[in-house]
């Protein structure tokens, strides 16, 4: 069965995934909107940067974040408290690590909305903000669902980044994947089973709920 430490790790993981996904949606929406609409010549540079976490080994990302957020990093030099080995540090890492999984679906969704519905809305007296909230957002809904699911799931599954910048502090930075790794390391296979099984069931239930609630939309659009 799951012991208290496992449950703590489970709740910490959910908290981390929810927080990161929320932050990514809030920051990612205007960013993806801008990316989808801009005719800036060097847009591809930004796109490449957003996609970078997709191809980098998570440990590389984690390593640089550790340097950046650690006790001797530039952040602390500016007077801020070091974020390495804290939950906030984990959130920063997760946001960067899961960014492409949220930005990409939002970008695609806004792009597939196209110019026309917004032009029509403009001829119907809707101001730019009005058009964004009444036309662009509702039409991009499938993209938001995909972005949330992918962002959430990807954060739950991360390991390398978390290990580098979060370490393994129970109750603060010990997430599920690391707890499972710990169990396996200590040859506690039964505990590893329980935790892994719980994760599988949890992920499956989440996806089932999302798919069932959005039969009209394909969650994964490639």
């Amino acid at each position, binding site marked *: 069965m799951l012991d208290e430490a496992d449950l703590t790790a489970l709740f910490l993981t959910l908290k981390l995934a929810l927080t990161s996904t929320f932050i990514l949606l809030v920051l990612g929406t205007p960013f993806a909107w801008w990316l989808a609409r801009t005719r800036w010549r060097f847009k591809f540079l930004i796109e490449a940067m957003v996609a970078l976490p997709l191809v980098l080994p998570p440990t590389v990302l984690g390593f640089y974040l550790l340097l950046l957020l650690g006790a001797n990093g530039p952040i602390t030099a500016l007077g801020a408290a070091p974020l390495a080995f804290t939950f906030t540090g984990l959130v920063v890492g997760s946001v960067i690590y899961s960014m492409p999984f949220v930005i990409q679906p939002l970008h695609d969704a806004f792009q597939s909305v196209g110019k*026309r*519905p917004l032009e029509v*809305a403009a*001829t*119907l*007296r*809707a101001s730019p903000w009005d058009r964004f909230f*009444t036309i662009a957002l509702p039409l991009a*809904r499938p993209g938001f669902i995909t972005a949330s699911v992918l962002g959430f799931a990807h954060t739950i599954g991360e390991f390398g980044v978390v290990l580098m910048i979060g370490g393994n502090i129970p109750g603060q930075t010990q997430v599920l994947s690391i707890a499972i790794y710990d169990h396996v390391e200590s040859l506690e296979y039964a505990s590893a089973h329980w935790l892994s099984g719980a994760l599988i069931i949890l992920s499956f239930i989440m996806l089932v709920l999302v798919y069932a609630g959005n039969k009209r939309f394909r969650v994964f659009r490639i």
Partner: protein
Amino acid sequence: MSLDISFNLQREDFAMNVDLSLPDSGITAIFGPSGSGKTTLLRAIAGLENIPGGKITFNGQVWQDTANFISTHLRAIGYVFQEPSLFPHLSVKQNLEYGLSRVPAEDQRIPLKESIALLNITKLLERHPHTLSGGEQQRVAIARALSVSPRLLLMDEPLSSLDNKLKQEILPYLESLHRELSIPVIYVSHATDEVARLADNLVILKAGEILGSGPIQEMLTRLDLPLAHRNDAETLIHATVTTSDTEFGLSTMTSGELDFTVPGNALPTGTSARLRIAAHDVSLTLEKQTGTSIQNIFPVTVVELQAENHAQIMIKLQLGDMPLLARLTRKSVEELGITPGLQVYAQIKSVAVLA
């Protein structure tokens, strides 16, 4: 009061030069082949395209000049796009209310009820756009454009995405729009049949240049413009039904001093309609013929001749105070000695009523 537009557009692959003053009543058709800049012109009027250095004023209100650019949502326009472009996440009713709810109550001159009735979409209100046919969608799109009570209605080939049957279904609605609402309409089209039926004024565009603009009768018959040189070059005449003859199933339609006999007597007396006379259905005689089957024979004066090709000549005639086109062979023209100023008789073999 009118709509004045002037701009100069230089793009890599396209140049456009516009200086127009359009009347603020009736339907003005922007006519030209695809790629001639019709849609660009319409989008500039709507503010969907910002052409640097352009100047647009509507009834004294500056929409664009060097210092100002009024955004689309602040211009008193309605716009019907080529595709219906209904909002897929809203029902038909919500699509109509989208515009209505954004117009202050005191500016709502066209009640939603009226446009719903005019376009016959009462039964569609609760449905979602994807369940409607193309023709139904376009009718809803027209009603939606009217929902903001526009002072100027812009229509970008609203029928071009529809097949011929649906076109015939929607044309009457456009005509009743014309009759019942006093909103000036700018109607982009490349189809002469639509233009002949709907337009009061015509702007002819070609490769970004305006070849001519004015009343449709004049534009159709000016020999320096391309419309008078089509295979189916035609003359339009506004006429009113004065008598109808049940014995032979004919009607008399009168325009000024002239009475035209036309087949069919379905239209009630007093109805106005457009008569269309094809240039190839008009022949000329030096004396008035008797013993002919032709019903419509009028004295006319030759105004202008222009060779179409080696064999044929287009002749512009004066019929009362109206122009009339006739296409004859060069041989006949030479044999009859037809020259400008000559008084002859025009025999019109067939007159079509556009209604």
